[in-house]
Each structure stands twice: as structure tokens, then as C-alpha cells.
């Protein structure tokens, strides 16, 4: 094995050497005779967030079904790995996929911190990577990489859209709360980047183990804001919204959210979710054809509603298919695949989007709301478009042009 470790901090030099390295790799014996597309899939399959991981896996499988289980004409082999929500496990599994399984693509990553920890081996080995959820701002900025693409967003974009909506609603003062990890900090910064009113209080709570927010909710009440903004992904969102309702704050101080009410938490929140707005780049009722097919087939196959996590992962299949098709199955031609992927030339379930220089989508963000349907079930609906063709604010820091 040759030693391929580089300092990420020397990104510009690496960028310069990209074409040389790609050529070197193209001649590598392990990759020359590919008959299948080997995909490593990293997500969370244990613990409470397994609900998210399963939704992603289901959507990915559905996407493969829709492509006849072939991408660019080649049969597909997927290896699923569980990161257990832990960054250190995520790195280990990433290394295993690269070094032991010699995969052509790595797909997945829910959590910003798991992604940040795993980025070095991915970049060092120049593995084609499609991040389908985690949106750490470093990835959009200084740590962007030629072979790493995202089908999601940068963390601050969604809360920034919520901030714009709060301005529209005439909110003058706000209290912000979120968990204390990479995404939590990015989210709170995101609201502040667009919200024009005054921030009267801000709390970062212990993550992932703090689930009682009584002290923080009391604090929020004490500061008497016009609105509360919260970011709590997964199961924590259910707890936060429940405690918010039960503290009597609902009806007094409105709650605005990002990634807190989603299709996975909705069946648990039920009525509690109604009247709590959120922003998202994808909603199940977006009217394009690809999305209708995705949502209908998902419901038929898994008897549940897909979430945005699933939608983003479903898109990864289309993105990879376009890349493998463009190089006619020559998976060693990473440069060719990169160029094709930069066009985002596939049928995304969110509608068409473009890639920025940093390989983060430039896309719309919608206002969504929970409604109760006639049959007693609950679902999320698009209310309005908050912002069109939004690009993250970190792309300037990305050395790729």
C-alpha cells in the first residue's frame, strides 16, 4: 500500500495535484476491472436514530429498484454500515469501506460530527462520496473536496429560511435553542444570519443525552420573546415539542423550527405538531413527477411516509447513475464522473437544482406545515416558497472554482 495521507490544510496544493493523482489512480490495478458498482452506505441503524437510517436505506433501495438495480448499466452491490451516531465509529466504518471493501462510492452520513470525523480518509483516498444529509459548514467551505458531493444542504440554509419567514411574520424578539454539536451551532448561526429582530436568549443544550428542557423553557418564558426558534432532530424533536406544549407556552409564544417536525416524528407528535411551521428543501407533496412516483412507491412498499432524509438519499441514486452512465462504466475515470455530477443532470425529487462550486445544491426552501387528513393521519404540506435558488454562505471559502 502506498501512503496517501496528506494534510488537508494544504488544500490548494492538493487541488493542483488532483489531475495527476486521478491519473495515477486510474492506472491502479484494484479499480481497473470493475464489473459492479460497489457502494458503501454509512448511516445509523442502531439506537433511536435508526428510524432515520432505515428511512434512508429504504429510499436508497427503492431508488435502486427504480433503476432496475443497475447504475450506468452496471450491477450494484451495496454494503450498509452502522455509525451508531458516534463519530469515532463512523471513521472506523468509513476506513473499512475504503480499505477493506474498496468501494467505488460512499453514500450517507446523517450527522455533521460523524461526517467531519470521516472526511479525512474519504478525501485522502479520493473516494467518490455523496453526502445525503449532514451539512457541516466546513464541508461547504474550507474542507470542500472535488470528489465529495451533497444531495442535502448546508446546515445554516434551512434555519436561514426560517429566519426570513420570522421577519415576514413580524417577529421582533426571539429565543434560540438547539443541541450543542456541530449542526446545532450552525443552525442557530443560520437563523441569526437572516433574522432582523433581536435575539433575547440563546441556549445550547447537552447532546445527545439531555432530554429535559424544563430549565431552558422556563428561561425562554422569562425572557418574554415574540417567538422561540428550535432545532432538535430525530427523537429529541418529539420531546422538545411535547414539553413546549405541556409547559403552556403553546398559544403564548409561537415556535418556529428547523428539522424538528418531520415525517418521522409526525406520527408521534400528532396534534402537537399542528401550527408549528418549519422550512425544508423537500416536502412530500412537491408536484413534480419524480417526487410523485417516489412518494407513491415508497408508501406502497414500506407502508409509511418517506421523510426528507429518504428523499435526499433517493436522489443520490440518480446522481450516481448519471455519473456512471457518463463514463460508460469506467469507474476509474473519477474526473469524468466529477464533471458529470457537477451538472446535477438527473430527476431530483425536489425538482431541478444546480451545484455550487463547493458541490452543495443551490435550491429552493419551502415553508411547511403539519395538517390532519380526513382519514385521521397527519402529513406535512408545502405552504409557500420562502426562498428561491438559495446558495450557502460558505462557498467563498471553498478553494474549488
Amino acid at each position, binding site marked *: 500500500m502506498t501512503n496517501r495521507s496528506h494534510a488537508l490544510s494544504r488544500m490548494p496544493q492538493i487541488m493542483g495535484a488532483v489531475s495527476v493523482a486521478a491519473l495515477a489512480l486510474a492506472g491502479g490495478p484494484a479499480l481497473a476491472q470493475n464489473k459492479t458498482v460497489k457502494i458503501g452506505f454509512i448511516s445509523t441503524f442502531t439506537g*433511536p436514530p435508526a428510524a432515520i437510517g432505515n428511512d434512508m436505506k429504504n429510499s436508497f433501495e427503492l431508488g435502486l429498484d427504480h433503476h432496475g438495480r443497475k447504475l450506468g448499466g452496471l450491477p450494484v452491490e451495496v454494503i450498509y454500515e452502522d455509525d451508531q451516531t458516534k463519530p469515532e465509529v463512523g471513521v472506523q466504518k468509513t476506513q473499512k469501506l475504503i480499505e477493506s471493501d474498496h468501494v467505488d462510492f460512499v453514500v450517507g452520513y446523517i450527522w455533521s460530527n460523524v461526517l467531519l470525523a470521516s472526511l479525512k480518509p474519504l478525501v485522502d483516498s479520493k473516494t467518490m462520496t455523496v453526502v445525503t444529509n449532514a451539512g457541516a459548514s466546513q464541508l461547504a467551505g474550507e474542507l470542500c473536496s472535488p470528489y465529495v458531493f451533497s444531495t442535502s444542504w448546508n446546515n445554516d440554509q434551512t434555519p436561514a429560511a426560517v429566519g426570513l419567514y420570522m421577519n415576514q411574520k413580524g417577529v421582533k424578539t426571539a429565543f434560540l435553542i438547539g443541541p*450543542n454539536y456541530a449542526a446545532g451551532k450552525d443552525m442557530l448561526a443560520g437563523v441569526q444570519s437572516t433574522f432582523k429582530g433581536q435575539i433575547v436568549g440563546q441556549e445550547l443544550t*447537552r447532546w445527545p443525552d439531555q432530554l429535559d428542557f424544563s430549565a431552558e423553557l422556563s428561561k425562554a418564558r422569562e425572557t418574554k420573546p415574540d417567538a422561540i426558534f428550535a432545532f432538535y432532530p430525530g427523537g429529541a424533536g418529539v420531546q422538545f415539542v411535547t414539553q413546549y406544549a*405541556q409547559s*403552556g407556552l403553546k398559544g403564548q409564544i409561537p415556535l418556529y423550527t428547523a428539522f424538528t417536525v418531520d415525517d418521522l416524528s409526525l406520527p408521534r407528535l400528532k396534534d402537537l405538531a399542528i401550527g408549528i411551521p418549519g422550512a425544508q428543501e423537500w416536502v412530500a407533496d412537491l408536484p413534480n413527477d419524480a417526487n410523485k412516483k417516489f412518494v407513491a412507491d415508497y408508501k406502497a412498499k414500506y407502508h409509511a411516509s418517506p421523510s426528507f432524509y429518504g428523499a435526499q438519499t433517493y436522489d443520490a441514486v440518480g446522481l450516481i447513475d448519471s455519473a456512471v452512465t457518463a463514463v460508460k462504466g469506467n469507474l476509474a475515470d473519477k474526473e469524468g464522473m466529477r464533471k458529470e455530477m457537477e451538472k446535477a443532470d438527473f430527476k431530483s425529487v425536489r425538482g431541478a437544482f444546480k451545484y455550487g462550486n463547493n458541490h452543495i445544491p443551490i435550491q429552493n426552501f419551502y415553508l411547511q406545515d403539519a395538517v390532519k387528513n380526513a382519514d385521521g393521519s397527519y402529513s406535512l404540506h408545502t405552504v409557500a416558497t420562502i426562498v428561491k435558488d438559495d446558495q450557502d454562505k460558505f462557498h467563498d471559502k471553498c478553494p474549488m472554482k
Partner: protein
Amino acid sequence: MLYLIEQFLNGIQLGMLLFLLAAGLTLIFGIMDLVNLAHGSLYMIGAYFAATFADWTDSFVLGTVLALIATLIVGMALEVIAIRRLYGRDHLHHVLGTFGLLLFFNELVRLIWGPAGMTLSLPSEMLTAVQVLPGLYYPVYRLVIIAVTLAVAALLYLLVMRTRLGMLIRAGASNREMVGALGINIKLLYTLVFGLGAALAGFAGLMQAPILTVQIGMGENILIAAFVVVTIGGIGSIRGAFVAALLVGLVDTIGRAFVPDLLHRYLSEAAASGLGRSLSSMLVYVVMALILVVRPEGLFPAASR
């Protein structure tokens, strides 16, 4: 001032929850001399049972009662099958064996109920806040937790101090062989005590289920807090557990509520937020270490063992 009272109530409510968990733990500790890391699993199982039964029966109250009975049975079965064999071993083996049980139960719950977690919905009349003082609103359900736990604490006191079973429990704690020699079925006594501890843990789990969570691993973090309570209170002392639970609940809540703001007065925003979070999270452990340095056997050490 009202804000201070509100945060105090938050602290007391957390303390009450910790007491329910710690009471069972300290009973088992004191009487069987067993370190039980699987106590948090019983807390989790109580919550899962409550969510399931409430779903089946469509009644919050009925669901919780059934769950309590079920957890009691699971606890006693666990004692007979596995725990019993750990008595008299080294504490290290307790840690290892019950750590294994903890892993096992997490996995079993995932197998049975799936990974997603469950919801135990409150009756709508409890889903609101009431005015406890002019201008001070407090969630009804949290007040219910405080009241119910105080009632349980009183019952537990009566049970241990005023009944024959309690007398045996106290006797067993101070001199095991003697109780056995007097012809008492010590095995049965231990099973009952473990079941009681399990039921208390399950009760804590189902009481918190509507406001916190019903999910895998929910017992682990609070378990450590409960161990802190037991240690500060003095192993085996229910009175100690009560005092320590209130102390830990208040310290933790007050720390989270006030330490970061306090630091802001003296430090820059950035420094204060990082330091404040660390300080408020570790305050409980600092308190425990300080208490143990001064009183190596906790606040209410067992009289003789």
C-alpha cells in the same frame, strides 16, 4: 423572583424522578450488596410497557397500572434467573454482569419494539400549565410527578419502618445471616426486594415517559445520575437518597439555569458559553466528589455493616 421559584420547582421535579430511581437502587445496594447497572433497563422497560398498555387499553391510568405490575414481574423473574447468582460476588463482577444485562435488554427492546421509540400521550387535561402563584404558571403534569413521588416516598417510609416486611428488610441489611438463622426465607425476601426496586424503577420510567422519552438507552444517562444520588446519600439509606436526589436535582437545574448567565458578567460571550456549559454539566459530579472527599461514605452512612 417568580423565575427563581419556577427553576426551583424544575429542580425539585427532577429530584423526585431521581429519587424514584435511586430508592430502588439503594435498597438493592444496601440489602443485597449488589451494584446493579441494569436498573436503568427496568426503568426503560417500565416506560415501554406503559406506552404499549396505554395503547392497548386506550387509558393512561390503566396502562400505567398494568405496566407497574408487569415491571414488578419482570424484575422478580430477572432476580430468580440471573441476579441471584451474583450475590456475594465481587463488585467488579456485578458491574460486568449487569453491564451485560444492560446491553442485552437494550437489544431485546429493539428486537421487540423496533428502534424508533414510542410515545405515551398524556390525557389532554394534563397537557397544560396552571397558575401556582400569581403570575407563575407551571405544567400540571410536572406537579403531578412531584405529588405522586412524595406519596410514594411516604408509602416507602411506612413500608420500611412500620411493616413486618420492612422490619425484615432492615434486619437483612444489618445482619444477613441472623435473619436467615431465624428461619426467614431470605431468598424470597431478596426476590421481593429486587421486585420492589424494579417496580420503583419502572414507575420512574413510566412517569417521565410522557415528557421525556420512551426509547432505547433512555435509562443509561439517568442511571449514572441515580448512582450519584445513591453515593451522595450513602449506600442503603433511603432517607439519604431522598435528600441527595433533591440536592442533585436542584444543583443540576440551577446550574443549567444560572451558571452560564453568571459567567457572562465576568467573561466574554464565547468563553462564557463554552465554560458555562461545561461547568453546569459537571457541577453534580463536583458536588459528589467534594462530599465524598469530606465524607467518604456519603451523607447518611449505614450504621454498621
